[in-house]
């Protein structure tokens, strides 16, 4: 299993959890960003994600290395799904192993913020009224 992956396949937490586990780690944090049934209160039918996959994977690797230096965490793995996602399906999965939990909590929040700024992946909301919209683009 690759630690950093952009994939059309359903994301699986357990293999990522195993990738980041280590006898020196006292904390494992798993974060899942999940397709929600609304955005700003407007009803979502389903989501569609598109990526520049080669660059997105590179960016995820860079962010993880930066987080390791900045927060002193241990192993990191990040998978992002692309294609059509039904409500409740996982879009992004971050796993962090760390000696101490504080660093892992700080790092996972920072990683998610960064992913939403620098990783070339785009979300299209397909609303229940049949219209669609690339988030952040008008």
């Amino acid at each position: 299993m690759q630690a950093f992956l952009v994939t059309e396949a359903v994301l699986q937490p357990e293999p990522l959890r195993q990738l980041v586990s280590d006898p020196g780690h006292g904390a494992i944090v798993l974060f899942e960003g999940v397709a929600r049934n609304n955005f700003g209160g407007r009803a979502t039918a389903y989501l569609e994600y598109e990526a520049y996959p080669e660059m997105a994977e590179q960016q995820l690797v860079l962010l993880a290395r930066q987080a390791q230096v900045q927060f002193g965490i241990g192993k990191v793995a990040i998978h992002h799904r692309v294609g059509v996602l039904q409500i409740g399906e996982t879009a992004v999965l971050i796993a962090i192993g760390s000696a101490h939990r504080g660093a892992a909590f700080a790092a996972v929040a920072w990683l998610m913020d960064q992913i939403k700024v620098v990783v070339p992946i785009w979300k299209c909301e397909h609303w229940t009224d049949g219209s669609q919209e690339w988030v952040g683009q008008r």
Partner: protein
Amino acid sequence: MIISIRLFAGLREALNQSSLNLDVAETATVGTALAQLAELHPKLPLTGLAYAINRQYVTLEATLQPNDELALIPPVSGG
């Protein structure tokens, strides 16, 4: 020289294609390539973008080499 341009999300939908080749001057920068593209496809929404050459973020002033892959990156919204 020929460079390839990658299009995503709204840009891809606007042209109904995910990449295209562009014949640009040897001295071309991201900015001049974009101006050329805008002339070819006046309806393409080219505001608010970031740019990458060969998967590295660059500015409008970056110069292009033959066969470079120039990606036009709309505001991202992963996660």
